[in-house]
């Protein structure tokens, strides 16, 4: 099985921080987002303190992968999580996408090869979330 991250929503962690602050702050979400874009250190600080309870803060993004796997392997993934979007591109090649919540919850409940590939693929796209996963699930 091979997994390659093709693309993802920009500024994933800025959006996570925006989502966290939106629920508890009187400021407008667009203002929060634009302010946080200019303050990556603040984003790292906020997201670094993440405790995933209301998982919805991890839902405002999408990661899109190219997956090379057999039909049986893909069926196994689909049976383990209903929340991945999967499209067959060609023989044994698939477009797979999800948000970070799906990824985190998959990793929390299934420790398999696919789960490891997922987590490694977000190292650059969402470094604080990557650290969070490694910190809490080892």
């Amino acid at each position, binding site marked *: 099985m091979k997994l390659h991250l093709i693309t993802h*929503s920009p500024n994933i962690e800025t959006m996570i921080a925006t989502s966290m602050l939106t629920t508890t702050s009187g400021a407008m979400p667009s203002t929060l987002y634009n302010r946080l874009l200019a303050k990556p250190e603040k984003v790292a600080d906020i997201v670094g303190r993440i405790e995933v309870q209301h998982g919805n803060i991890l839902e405002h993004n999408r990661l899109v992968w190219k997956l090379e796997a057999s039909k049986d392997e893909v069926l196994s993934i689909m049976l383990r999580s209903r929340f991945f979007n999967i499209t067959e591109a060609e023989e044994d090649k698939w477009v797979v996408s999800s948000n970070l919540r799906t990824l985190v919850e998959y990793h929390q409940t299934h420790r398999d090869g696919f789960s490891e590939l997922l987590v490694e693929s977000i190292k650059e796209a969402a470094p604080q979330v990557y650290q969070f996963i490694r910190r809490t699930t080892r």
Partner: protein
Amino acid sequence: MKAQLLTHTPLSEVEKEFPNHDWKELLPHLNYTFAIEKISRACTHQLVRHRIASFSQQSQRYITVKRLDERVVTPESIANNKSFETLIQQASEAYQRLVEQEIPREDARFVLPNAVESSLLMTMEGRSLMHFIGLRTCNRAQWEIRKLADMMLAQLREVEPRVFNNAGPYCFQLGYCPEGRHTCGKMKEALERYKV
């Protein structure tokens, strides 16, 4: 009311890897996140009926509503209506009194009307968004959510015209009105309005 598309996953990025794939099949892999601001709580109730979406909304448990009379959405049909103005004033006073009595905000908010403003982040994948636009730009949709859907569609057409130039009310998307006997009877005008 304000709607701003903050981020999205471009179709072209996915197509680079899968060039021969029909964009319609790739729609569920695309995401769009909007900041939606200063809409009524009545409108946010309508939004959350679209279940294949993600929402992060300002919480009335944490955010105190200050000067309620300045933070309400007023429909045209009841602008300057004495009953409405009186009720807002009374709700405002009752809310403030409860907060001053140190009643938890989560309980004080029970006196707030549907007209109170709210803001949120909303994320939808492409296929759900086409459905949302189909339903909510329809003449039969309620005015506030229709206005919001129109604002969103204008921005979507700017960033992803190949996809969203096909979006509009369902009569525009399908070529016929699916509303049956409830049809507004103005399909021709709707097609003209959403034509690119």
